């Protein structure tokens, strides 16, 4: 990783986060590191950080057996273990079945009221299913990314899930391609859930990451989602110059 380590009160040598065996996937299928300058700076200055996890059902935790097993809850404990001495609060604002346009409105509201140190925006699935034109989706997402940048808040885009049914849906593929392009061009961290989940599905045919409806994740699916997001975050903590995202 071409990262520059900077000095600070915070221990900068956070070791790469290991993935549990069922969630193991190659780095290229999880995320290309991208700089998180504001989050990293906050980490150096403060002992308590707030992360806003916003999006739709994958954030709300549908299919999990309890709220504590949603990806934001799991992420909170993984990050607290990895970043020793830092108190991390991950606020869950997932609303199932919501399109990006409405989530963007809620993000602006949340940021104005309670400025978070990092926004994890999980998006794309519902826009693809409700057939929002890809150009509209792209404009909406880019607008918000620029707005967040202007307001010095780092953001992580958390991509769409892999399901065998939607793998063949052209709108689904198109929105996913747009997300990848937006992330590369806007230089934001993008967690490629689809690729990571597909890798696991192909590597371990016996593992089930999905709930019985074949759409929501199950507890293991959320565990892996949290691990992947945490892995991508930690790998990006001290990145100064993001390397071009691998296609």
């Amino acid at each position, binding site marked *: 990783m071409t990262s520059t380590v900077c000095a600070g009160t915070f221990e900068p040598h956070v070791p790469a986060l290991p993935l549990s065996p069922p969630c193991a996937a190659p780095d290229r299928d999880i995320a290309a590191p991208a700089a998180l300058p504001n989050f990293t700076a906050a980490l150096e200055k403060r002992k308590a950080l707030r992360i806003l996890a916003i999006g*739709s*059902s994958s954030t*709300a935790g*549908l*299919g999990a057996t309890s709220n504590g097993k949603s990806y934001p809850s799991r992420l909170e404990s993984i990050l607290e273990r990895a970043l020793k001495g830092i108190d991390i609060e991950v606020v*869950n*604002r*997932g*609303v*199932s*079945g*919501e*399109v990006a*346009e*409405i989530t963007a*409105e*809620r993000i*602006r*509201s949340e*940021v*104005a*009221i*309670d*400025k978070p140190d990092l926004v994890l925006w999980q998006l794309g*699935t*519902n*826009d693809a*299913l*409700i*057939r*929002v*034109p890809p150009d*509209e989706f792209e*404009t909406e997402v880019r*607008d918000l990314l620029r*707005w967040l940048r*202007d*307001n*010095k808040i780092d953001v992580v885009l958390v991509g769409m899930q892999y399901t065998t049914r939607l793998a063949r849906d052209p*709108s689904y593929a198109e929105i996913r391609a747009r997300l990848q392009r937006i992330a590369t061009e806007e230089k934001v961290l993008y967690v490629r859930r689809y690729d990571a989940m597909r890798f696991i599905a192909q590597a371990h045919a016996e593992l089930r990451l999905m709930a019985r*409806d*074949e*759409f*929501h994740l199950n507890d293991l699916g959320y565990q892996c989602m949290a691990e992947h997001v945490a892995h991508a975050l930690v790998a990006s903590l001290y990145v100064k110059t993001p390397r071009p995202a691998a296609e």
Partner: protein
Amino acid sequence: MREPNEIDFWRGFALVTIFVNHVPGLYFERFTYRNASLSDAAELFVLLAGWALRKLVDSTPKEGAAAGLVFRLAGRALDVYVAQLVITEIAIAILAASSILLDAPFLLDWHNASAVFHDPVRAHIGTVVLTHQLGYFNILPLYVVLMLGAPLIPSIHRAAPSALLPASLAIYAATLVLGVNLPTWPIEGTWFFNPLAWQAVFVLGYLAAGTDGFGGFVRRHRTSLRWLALPVVALGALAALARYSPDPIDLPEPTLFFMFDKTFLSPARLLHALALAVLLGGAFATIRRFLPPLTDYLALLGRNSLQVFCAASLLSLIGQILRFASGGTFAIDAVIVSVGVSILGAVAWASDSRERLRRASPKGQPPSSPAASS
């Protein structure tokens, strides 16, 4: 039936706009006014609801009216509440049926519906106490809260006419300063339309409808206010077209005052909605001269606003599902809008006819459906 009038016309206009705006990705959305405006049909709808409240209050005889008025307004709040529960339940059934028919379990997720299926114990409580709202079905809960508070408005207004506006604005300001909002449950979050903030536009509508006080002031200074409104509307159009949104990082506290926030109805949106009303209010007569079928049709919708609103909410949802199933082409979008607006007309016409029958029936012999009087 009352003749087409300006309020009904604009209400009908707001209803059609809300119907189109609630189908994400619909081709015709680009022709709705929010694309060139800071405020949208929601502000217009609530402003007109406040206006209608004033008309209702003024048409209630003054003698011994206090109790009668409270009952009347509480009855209206109950009507809206029941309507909200009924359309929510129908929406849930539409999603459930589509998920079976289209073999698409993810439809159960749409618009925050999932808790009803995955966490039914708590979601049912939340639905009844209005803390669980489906996306796009969140305007009526606001309206219920406003109507529950509605008896206070004429009471304060009669006791101390000049106190109503400052009281309303004080609650509004405090809400924005503190950032308080009603919670949602079981899904953790807050109301999409914050009643504590949105009551301001409701009360302003109430006051503007009168010929005294604020309403009188507006009427007396109509021309100068229009000149003031013009730049506000123009700036709003520029901001919307440029997709500009203020940066809280550059703003002084409390930032909500300077944002374009919809949940908290930031002052820019409120001011813009008022400016739009001042600028376009009165245009009805002109529009009617050139396009009488349009004005009469929209007035028909607006005259039956609750029924049409409910139908529009469900039709938007059906439109979304059709777009999912068909891939969302221009042709299907054209069908959704033309058939949808026609059905809204049919619903309004049926409601009008029922009302006509009720009025025609001899006194003391209510027709079979007493519920039709709302």
